[in-house]
């Protein structure tokens, strides 16, 4: 009977842990995506900045 209680608890804990792990993988995926977006933004800002500087020098 004790084994029974233990195995039931184990089943529930495993499912709960799997839900937690998925959430961690979601975090990683979101972080990767954010990093990519930030580097894209930085590049665009640099290009825009260079463009503005060139325009100012030309004008």
């Amino acid at each position: 009977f004790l084994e029974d209680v233990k195995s039931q608890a184990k089943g529930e804990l495993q499912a709960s842990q799997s839900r937690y792990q998925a959430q961690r993988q979601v975090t990683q995926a979101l972080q990767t995506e954010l990093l990519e977006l930030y580097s894209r933004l930085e590049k665009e800002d640099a290009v825009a900045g260079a463009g503005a500087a060139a325009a100012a020098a030309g004008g």
Partner: protein
Amino acid sequence: AYYEKVGFRGVEEKKSLEILLKDDRLDVEKLCTFSQRFPLPSMYRIFVWKVLLGILPPHGDSHALVMSYRKQQYEDVLQALQVMRFVQSSTPQVEVYLHMHQLESLALPRRTEVTPLEPEAEDFLAIARAMAKIVESSVDCYWLIKCFVNQYSNKYGDSVPHLPKSLEHFLSLEDSRLLNHLRTCNAMSKLPYNLWFRRCFAGCLPESSLQRVWDKIISGSCKILVFVAVEILLGYKIMLMGMNKPEDITQFLENMPQENTDAIVTKAIDLWHKHCGTPMHSV
């Protein structure tokens, strides 16, 4: 008389399965044995698959709680993909399942790179398409696809490369003339092994026949795949004997007629029991 006997057996089997399913704590081993020996009644199939694949734990008292976790996990992953715009309302459901699985195994492709799908992803999609025709609820469907694919590669990954050899062996026992013909026209190395042994006949057999094969895979045998392949070859022997180009043979088998597949699967299961024995633990 034959049908009476089969019908009677069916009722008896269903009763013995119902007794197994009444337990507060399901005996997974006995459920495996049952599924190896008998066809699962369709009303219990999805439930039994969920138990055998560990989506539901043995304890009935935990099922509601565990299923709520499963559902939440499904929604969490899906929502993240929507926010990341990996998934839109126009994305086909099986591709949603694929991306969810990729995210969960940390293998989400970079979206900036438009790369063709890996063969594994194509196999996943084929299995997902078939599962989606068998299972209605999308939460159940995703979990079943994911656990089926994971179980298959973890448990049988090492055996799969040997299945073509095994097919050759059993075909030589059943019909050496057909085997010789296939060898002579160099078709043995070009049979649709991916479709048969990596996709487990998803996209090859109609779902009503396919699910009876998957019963056996889920409950612990990948060898059944070999016997299904043997019976397909035997079933279309006359056609195959008339073909000499390996590409014609492959082409025919990849687009196999969908008519007699139930009979093919029944024969395959008999042949499998004949060669590999029927599990005889008490049920």
